[in-house]
């Protein structure tokens, strides 16, 4: 992915370089590619130049310039058509030069096509199967209209966490500081680990980390403090996951989808809902795990447990 973007940046500068003479010196440019250089040719040289400069800017500015890369492919096709027409008619004053230009355009078309395809491929995950999966760290904060004591007590019972943390299947408290965690992995499988509390300051902070032998090495903490003006409690959650190499790691990387930070923020919103109103809020659409229009569900059976959990 990063390489495709790098190539796109190069193509961006290339576009600029190609576009400028077409705009600034259309006469010389048309001579260079061996066509007559009459008013018609110069007009086209100008059009192509402007197009190249715009495509160049797009390729250089956009974080993932998929459309601009494809616009270059389209531009190449247009150029091939123009040059081809020039060659086959009597437009070409020096046909060998025009043929060279045509060959050059054909070459760059392949590069553009390669880059466009590479950019169009879905980012992350898929291509990483056997490589080291990057560690993930997310920090998120939310304010809750409850006292620090209430927030601390609820969080301290780790068995409550799966009620609002979407990636967790279950947590079982197994000892004074020990717990056993199961997280959802793709295709209905789970990954598991044991964890221990490594810091526990009542009403202020809880920190935990996985023990040796975990499917996924991870750690987390929640910092709790009163919000200013007596407006409840601020919490800051800090989670780190370090998935192992190989297929398990790739599966774990998918746990949080493409936007881990957004998913943890949604988890905290659900935590706030449970603390403030006693249950997770659902709409007619979000009641379903898959996309559903905003209309009443067919049945409530399958999710009854989740809503009441």
């Amino acid at each position, binding site marked *: 992915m990063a390489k495709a973007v790098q190539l796109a940046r190069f193509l961006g500068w290339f576009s600029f370089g190609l576009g400028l003479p077409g705009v600034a010196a259309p006469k010389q440019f048309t001579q260079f590619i061996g066509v007559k250089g009459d008013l018609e040719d110069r007009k086209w040289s100008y059009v192509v130049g402007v197009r190249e400069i715009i495509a160049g800017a797009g390729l250089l500015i956009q974080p993932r310039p998929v459309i601009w890369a494809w616009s270059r492919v389209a531009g190449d096709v247009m150029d091939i058509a123009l040059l081809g027409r020039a060659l086959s008619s009597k437009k070409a004053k020096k046909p060998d030069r025009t043929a060279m230009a045509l060959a050059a355009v054909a070459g760059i078309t392949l590069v553009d096509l390669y880059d466009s395809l590479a950019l169009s491929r879905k980012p992350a995950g898929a291509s990483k199967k056997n490589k080291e999966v990057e560690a993930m760290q997310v920090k998120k904060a939310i*304010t809750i*209209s409850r006292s620090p004591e209430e927030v601390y007590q609820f969080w301290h019972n780790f068995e409550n966490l799966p009620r609002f943390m979407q990636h967790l299947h279950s947590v079982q408290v197994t000892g004074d500081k020990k717990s056993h965690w199961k997280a959802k992995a793709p295709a209905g499988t789970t990954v598991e680990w044991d964890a221990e509390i490594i810091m526990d300051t009542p009403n202020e902070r809880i920190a935990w980390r996985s023990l040796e032998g975990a499917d996924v090495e991870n750690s987390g903490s929640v910092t709790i403090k009163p919000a200013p003006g007596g407006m409840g409690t601020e919490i800051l959650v800090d989670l780190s996951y370090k998935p192992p190499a190989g297929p398990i790691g790739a599966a774990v990387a998918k746990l949080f989808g493409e936007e881990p930070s957004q998913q943890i923020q*949604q988890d905290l919103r659900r935590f706030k809902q449970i603390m403030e109103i006693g249950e997770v809020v659902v*709409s007619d659409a*979000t*009641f379903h795990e898959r*996309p559903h*229009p905003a209309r*009443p569900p067919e049945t409530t059976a399958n999710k009854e447990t989740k809503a009441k959990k």
Partner: protein
Amino acid sequence: MGKKDVKVEEVPDPKILMRQDAIVRITSTTICGSDLHLYDGFIPTMEKGDILGHEFMGEVVELGSEVKNLKVGDRVVVPFPIACGRCSMCQRTLFSLCENSNPNAHIAAALMGHSPAGIFGYSHMMGGYAGGQSQYVRVPFADVGPIKVPDGIPDEKVLFLSDIFPTGYYAAENCNIKPGDVVAVWGCGPVGQFAIASAYLLGAERVIGIDRFEYRLRWAREKAGAETINYEEVDVKETLDEMTGGRGPDACIDAVGLEAHAPGFVGAYDRAKQAVKLETDRPIVLREMIMSCRNGGTLSIAGVYGGFIDKFPIGAVMNRALTIKTGQTPVQRYMQPLLQRILNGDIDPGFVVSHHMSLDEAPRGYEMFVNKENEAMKIILKP
């Protein structure tokens, strides 16, 4: 079903999904001007099959286990924003900013930085709640939103407590009206009519309504008591200057929003930019209000905006010390006092009603309302 395509379909009956839910059998619902923004495709995250409608009333038929203030058989008007009543925003009576009622808060936050409250039938970004243009609807937080109304008072007198009466009133209240004030209201649709009427209730000396449809201007003059300007006939700023001794109105209300029209070049410019997605909203009314308002005056925005605008004259706002007040209306705050106003006889909200139709005729109702056919003002739908 798609842009400019609404259909009437059979769907399953709504069910209690949370312990504080109520199911309401709808007796009257409406098409709101802001439904037209959905209809015209200007609010993102609508899906095929979504049920619209956020202005409705009816009878409670089922209650979740934790609802305390309502009982089956109660006659209620339901406010359009959904609010939990417990979060810090609700505690400050900023109900339309409820922190808990939008389960799709992450989508709204991606567009707007933070999320406002969920709204019935108003896109997935605003929660994905089924709306009230139906026979039954699920109402979350039934102890917080719905207000009981006495039997014997007809639906059309209290129905608009759900949205447009509080919305017009909130717009006028945001003008901070003082005795002697002149208020100008852009847009003489139903919300504009209530903004005019509310400005008078709050003590404005003169209210000027601005529109291009003669029947709506006539409505504003005859039923709401406004002076009027037809913006297709005269220049609005010049006319306002003439009418206010050159000062400009003390406060300006935008009761139009993101689909504003303008004659000539400016209108075409913003339509074109919107069409190619260079801006999402047409800020024609906003610009005109900013240039027209008196120095140090107030701009109150009731019309709905969804995204981004262009060529916003911030220089005029800053140098002339204009105040901008806006927001989706925290309807829950206004229902009780405005119901009292209705019962006192200060106002009869029924003055905006132009048509009664059956819910089955909703597609035709949308067409009439969007095209301003048959002098459509406010359309009530009966399931």
